[in-house]
């Protein structure tokens, strides 16, 4: 029955009156009972029930620590042992550091809708309640772990995990099975036999070689965004280090030769890094505390949504308005921050590099740059050879040149002698001397005294006698930017010319300027170039290192670097994850600085697993088989995955390819989580962890966007048979020790097994530059504010990136010590990315995929002889074709021609944190226009429904009405998975179907689907199609999918950006004061690119109830894109007409 309110009231009223003996009777009775309600009121005792809603027996504080960078410390109110609600904290202003510095009160209150609904997750029906093992895996174990031939993989359902069943285990059983499993797998792939097996299983030689014949190297461990709980989550890497002990038993090697497992990256695999940052300044990421935002006078958000995705701290951005700052938003869509902006610059997705290059050209052409800053802090004066395209180095001029000793670089920044010799000294053109002048990396800021040329062409004679032309980079950029005149940039980006000029003018005239970069940028294949381009205007105008300036990005609480190690404090973060497993310090009072550290593990990008468990290797016509994955980044074959605090499979780009074609080759998948996720459904083990409110062990976290150190434990007794993360890890290690009769396993986890995790936390603090001097006891006693809190010991409050560089003239973390607009590593020159340049995406473009838009003679990319028409994805990765825009715009991406004409943006929703809260009913109801607690339309997978935002006109042109179900398909060559057959039941699971919502904020060729909903699985689809109520609620696991079919990941695939895999990029180590060349996880590694796709949208079902007719809410006249006459009148402000006559 579909009664309107008016009808209901009418019927109900009549029925009620009819039930009374006489309607007047009740009225007469009331009047006689209470003559004066104010003087005589009936019993009000009932009101106590309502007031008592807020009564509580006790409170406790804990940290709501999802992957959102905020880490809000919440207060939970408990009654009868149940946490009824949470409340935001108000104590931030009391938090101080060792020296008495205090945080500003403006930090509080801090929380968001997720924090408030957290109890619904804790007490919700989707918790993982006890350890479970997949029946097929257990059978494999019980059969003695026979080598898994294809037939046995089928027998034990490794290739059909999604249809196997789970069995309950007791914790000791689970630990024992895992110990045996890890041992069996390590043994299976160790030694020559192991290498042979890997070869027979199809792994490439480069990967096999990387195992060094240690089967433990095939064991992958991932502490999901471990900073969220350093002990329990990052503890996963300590477990990986434990595998070196296992290796001594499996291979019988000495402790010196023993190798641990592989540790998988987080930040970069999520695509959250701004991967261009290390290329510019050498740091993993430039970010600042959020309270630094308000100092900006010109605040630019590019691909960033501080309104929706930084909810707790978005007020800092709002404060810019109060302080008179100007706000600019750059995004394809009219986004929430665009509504707050002074102006919004719409862009074609994936073209931001061109925009910034155009702005840079306007600044240079107008001579609106800071010449002094360029000379003192940047590589613009450094000479570049036109023959090799490399920077002119001292050794080019004098083969016997010896770099001078550099104190700060070595003693503070950790530059080694070998590294120093390798990077050599750059050269400028000395205008006074009229010749080249060698400088070193500490000649920066006021330490740089040379009157050097920024412009001009010069010839120099090299040590070998040849003469080569060299140019200051600035001169080269003037030539380079000729390709990015205003008209061209407008054509490339679709941004209005007047707004491009306006922004250039604002950057030139307003200071400080800050650019805040989001995943609207970082999730593209060419994010590296876009990030480098974002820096150009800031470098040109000297907007670095002063409050309110800089180019920053925060996404994901990635910053293990907060626990920074140094020669003067100890190994910092590494003393927890990489303490020497053979020599653990068992003295509870030991200083963290004294711990012996040895990382037996090796870091690795998850992206290679995500690429079919292989590196990027392409058969090229010119050079044959060519590997584009650097040796420093080379993965090993993946035979076991052990992860915690991450919905790894759900959130994997190309998830269904992983499930269908990759994971069947993996012998063990273990998911530690608090809820039943798709990752658990496709795992061999599901191990239930305690939630943040139930943790019985101390945990510690900090943040990349605030200055707080926070330690906590939960205040609720665990509801189910779950354990603290660290206890799970320690339990596995202890079981390995039992299995091998080796007490060292337990020793390595001694204090966790004893429930004294605070010892590890104290050591972590002792050994970190940011925490040395704090004592755990003082912090927990409330010496620095609310018990469990303290300020990290940063150089400035608010923390300001590159403050030392600018104010104390210290070198940046690059080889030249300067900010880089140029990259002369061999890979960059080969790929045509030595200059910051605009490239069309390898897939998300209407034009020739991956084309370099340039006519610059100093960009000389290698095309490897690859056919421009070849649409193989790996080929598109590496095909470097250079063309000026006039030629590019005449090309066409064949996919575009086939109707794949929509960019698909996949931002985070404000109602969930990635996939967390995806099973929380309230958040799901809020999350889309189709939330419905009553599920009137039984097609809905649950109380929520995922949706695709589409421009109304685009939808109408496709015959799609508001609310219709549509398919969102991308390149059929490999998605949703390679080899998809229409009659494969899994194909039905994997194809994305969801609802359309008209949204005029999106331009015609751009659609938006929020990322990381709970994906459809084989079980959920079966449930959806067989349950009378249609819910996508798995029968035996209780997993609740957010989509009927497929997921956001149906349209994504892996892209292994070659520039993320170099062996030669010189940059700062992540968690220790030192440098490295090449890859490091989360630092210089594959930053994944879920947006690099084009989609086609086709109608699947009508939006009306049960598929009949249109979705009625779309026809209300109030819905965007379908406004009634009255609504249009209202929107146009024509409801009131003023008669001026």
């Amino acid at each position, binding site marked *: 029955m579909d009664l309107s309110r008016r009808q209901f009231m009418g019927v109900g009223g009549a029925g009620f009156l009819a039930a009374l003996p006489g309607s007047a009777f009740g009225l007469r009775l009331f009047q006689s009972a209470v003559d004066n309600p104010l003087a005589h009121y009936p019993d009000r005792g009932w009101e106590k029930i309502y007031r008592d809603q807020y009564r509580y027996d006790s409170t406790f504080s804990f940290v709501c620590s999802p992957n959102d960078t905020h880490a809000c410390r919440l207060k939970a109110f408990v009654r009868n042992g149940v946490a009824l609600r949470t409340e935001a904290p108000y104590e931030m202003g009391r938090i101080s550091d060792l020296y008495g510095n205090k945080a500003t009160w403006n930090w509080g209150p801090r929380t968001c809708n997720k924090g408030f609904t957290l109890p619904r997750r804790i007490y919700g029906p989707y918790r993982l309640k006890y350890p479970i093992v997949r029946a097929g895996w257990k059978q494999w174990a019980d059969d003695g772990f026979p080598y898994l031939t294809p037939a046995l993989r089928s027998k034990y359902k490794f290739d059909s995990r999604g249809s196997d069943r789970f069995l309950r285990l007791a914790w000791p059983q689970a630990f024992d099975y895992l110990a045996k499993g890890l041992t069996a797998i390590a043994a299976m792939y160790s030694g020559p036999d192991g290498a042979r097996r890997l070869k027979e299983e199809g792994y490439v030689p480069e990967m096999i070689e990387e195992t060094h014949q240690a089967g433990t190297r095939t064991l992958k461990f991932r502490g999901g965004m471990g900073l969220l709980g350093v002990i329990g989550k990052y503890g996963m890497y300590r477990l990986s280090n434990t595998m070196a002990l296992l290796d001594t038993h499996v291979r019988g090697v000495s402790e010196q030769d023993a190798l641990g497992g592989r540790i998988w990256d987080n930040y970069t695999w999520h695509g959250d890094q701004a991967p261009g940052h290390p290329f510019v300044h050498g740091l993993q990421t430039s970010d600042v505390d959020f309270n630094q935002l308000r100092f900006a006078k010109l605040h630019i958000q590019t691909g960033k949504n501080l309104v929706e995705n930084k909810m707790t701290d978005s007020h800092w951005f709002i404060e810019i308005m109060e302080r008179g700052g100007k706000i600019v938003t750059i995004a394809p869509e009219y986004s929430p921050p665009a509504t707050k902006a002074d102006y919004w610059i719409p862009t074609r997705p994936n073209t931001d590099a061109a925009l910034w290059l155009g702005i840079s050209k306007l600044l240079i052409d107008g001579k609106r740059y800071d010449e002094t800053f360029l000379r003192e802090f940047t590589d613009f004066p450094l000479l570049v050879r036109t023959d090799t395209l490399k920077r002119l180095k001292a050794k080019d001029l004098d083969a016997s040149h010896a770099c001078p000793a550099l104190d700060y670089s070595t003693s503070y920044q950790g530059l080694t002698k070998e590294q120093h010799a390798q990077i050599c000294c750059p050269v400028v053109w000395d205008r006074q001397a009229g010749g080249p002048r060698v400088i070193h990396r500490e000649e920066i800021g006021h330490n740089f005294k040379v009157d050097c040329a920024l412009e001009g062409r010069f010839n120099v004679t090299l040590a070998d006698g040849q003469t080569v032309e060299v140019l200051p980079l600035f001169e080269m950029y003037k030539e380079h930017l000729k390709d990015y005149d205003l008209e061209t940039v407008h054509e490339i980006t679709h941004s209005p010319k007047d707004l491009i000029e306006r922004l250039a003018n604002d950057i030139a005239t307003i200071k400080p300027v800050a650019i805040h970069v989001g995943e609207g940028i970082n999730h593209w294949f060419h994010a590296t170039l876009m990030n480098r381009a974002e820096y150009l205007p800031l470098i040109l105008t000297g907007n670095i290192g002063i409050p309110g300036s800089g180019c920053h990005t925060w996404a994901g609480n990635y910053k293990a670097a907060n626990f920074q190690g140094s020669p003067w404090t100890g190994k910092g973060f590494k003393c927890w994850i990489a303490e020497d497993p053979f020599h653990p310090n068992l003295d509870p009072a030991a200083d963290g600085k004294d711990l012996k550290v040895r990382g037996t593990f090796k870091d690795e990008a998850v992206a290679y697993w995500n690429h079919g468990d292989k590196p990027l290797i392409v058969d090229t016509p010119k050079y044959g088989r060519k590997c584009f994955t650097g040796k420093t980044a080379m993965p090993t074959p993946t035979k076991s995955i052990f992860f915690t605090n991450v919905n790894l499979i759900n959130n994997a780009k190309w998830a269904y390819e992983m499930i269908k074609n990759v994971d069947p080759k993996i012998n063990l998948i273990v998911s530690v989580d608090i809820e039943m996720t798709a990752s658990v459904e496709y795992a061999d083990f599901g191990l239930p962890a305690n939630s943040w409110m139930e943790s019985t062990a101390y945990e510690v976290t900090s943040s990349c966007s605030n200055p707080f150190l926070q330690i906590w434990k939960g205040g609720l007794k665990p509801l189910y048979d779950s354990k603290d993360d660290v206890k799970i890890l320690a339990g596995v290690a202890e079981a390995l020790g039992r299995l091998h009769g080796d007490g060292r396993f337990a020793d390595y986890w001694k204090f966790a097994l004893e429930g004294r995790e605070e010892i590890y936390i104290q050591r972590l603090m002792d050994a970190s530059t940011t925490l040395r001097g704090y004592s755990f006891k003082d912090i927990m006693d409330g010496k620095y504010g609310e018990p469990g809190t303290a300020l990290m010991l940063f150089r400035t409050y608010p923390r300001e990136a590159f403050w030392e560089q600018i104010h104390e003239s210290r070198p940046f973390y690059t080889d030249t010590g300067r900010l880089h607009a140029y990259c002369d590593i061999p890979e960059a020159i080969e790929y045509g990315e030595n200059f910051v340049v605009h490239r069309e995406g390898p897939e998300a473009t209407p034009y020739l995929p991956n084309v370099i838009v340039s006519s610059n003679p100093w960009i000389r990319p290698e095309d490897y002889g690859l056919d421009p028409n070849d649409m193989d994805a790996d080929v598109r990765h590496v095909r470097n074709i250079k063309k000026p825009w006039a030629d590019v715009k005449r090309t066409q991406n064949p996919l575009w021609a086939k109707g794949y004409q929509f960019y698909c943006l996949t931002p985070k929703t404000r109602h969930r944190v990635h996939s967390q809260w995806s099973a929380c009913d309230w958040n799901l109801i809020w999350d889309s226009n189709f939330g419905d607690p009553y599920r009137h339309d039984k097609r809905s997978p649950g109380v929520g429904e995922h949706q695709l935002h589409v421009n109304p006109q685009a939808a109408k042109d496709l*015959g799609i009405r508001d609310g219709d179900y549509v398919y969102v398909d991308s390149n059929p060559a490999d998605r949703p998975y390679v080899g998809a057959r229409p009659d494969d039941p899994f194909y039905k699971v994997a194809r994305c179907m969801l609802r359309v919502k008209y949204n005029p904020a999106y331009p015609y060729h751009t659609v938006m689907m929020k990322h990381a909903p709970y994906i459809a699985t084989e079980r959920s689809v079966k449930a959806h199609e067989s349950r009378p109520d249609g819910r996508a609620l798995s029968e035996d696991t209780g997993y609740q999918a957010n989509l009927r079919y497929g997921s956001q990941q149906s349209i994504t695939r892996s892209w292994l950006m070659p520039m993320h895999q170099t062996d030669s990029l010189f940059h700062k180590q992540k968690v220790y004061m030192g440098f490295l060349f090449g890859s490091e996880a989360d630092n210089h590694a594959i930053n994944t690119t879920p947006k690099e796709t084009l989609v086609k949208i*086709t109608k699947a079902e009508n939006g009306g109830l049960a598929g009949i007719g249109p979705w009625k809410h779309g026809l209300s006249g109030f819905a965007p894109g379908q406004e009634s006459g009255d609504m249009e009148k209202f929107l146009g402000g024509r409801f009131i007409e003023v008669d001026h006559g």
Partner: protein
Amino acid sequence: MDLQFAPHLVEAVVRHFVDRDLADARATYLRLYNDLVRLNLDRDPSRQESLNRYLFLSLGLDQPIGAVAAEFPGVSQEVHVGTASRSEGCFLVPPQGAVLVRLHPARFENAERLTRFLRNEWRHLADMKDPAFGYPEAPPDLDPPSRDRYALLWHIYVDARTAREGRQPMRGREQWKEEFDRYWAHVDDPGLRARAFERFWQAEELTHPELIDMGRDPHLFIRRYAGVAGDGRLGGRCPLCGFPTFHWVLNGRLKEAVAARIRADFRHWDPSQGACERCVELYEIRAGLW
């Protein structure tokens, strides 16, 4: 009206009736036949044919054909009725345009049903002779599913007009709707199917090319008669992936190489069933056409 019955048909009909009634001594035809035998009318074999004709006519078995032919005077004044070896039906015989009727003997058992059948057939002939209908000189070349749909639609068009004239059609609306539902089962929405059928049942002045087109493209039919909005693409389930779709690729647009690839995986699939755009793309890739 020149109505001629082939002797072998008449004999076959008479024998059919006699044989059918052998088990029942009181049956009309058997009694009559036995009476005639008693009158020795059958002693002369040369009179057997006369006996058969006598019986045929005295039983009024010729009347339905004459009556129906009279309903359609414009079709032809010359009707030849013979035995159907396989398919029954009425055919126009060039050059004079005589009507050739081929029937199974059993068809004569029920005069009313025969009449309805013939009426359906004769209206087909009337359409064919109507220049506005546009029946071609050579029969259309259609694949079997398309031919079946085309035939069904023409039958419905014929019987719908008969029904509107107040005469008994070969099949009533409900019967045709059941048949139609089977052929258009890929249309998920029963309301859509019903709406299309109802509108078609009222259709006037259709042409043969239109029927051909709608037979070839079942979605065209729905577009035309279901009043589907926009570009009117029809929702139904793809025979390959089973997903509902509004985006069909039908045999006219299917490349042979792609169809061959599909058939390799789906033995019972016929190009006339079409497939959703996505499935066709998947097979275009396999066929190297992407």
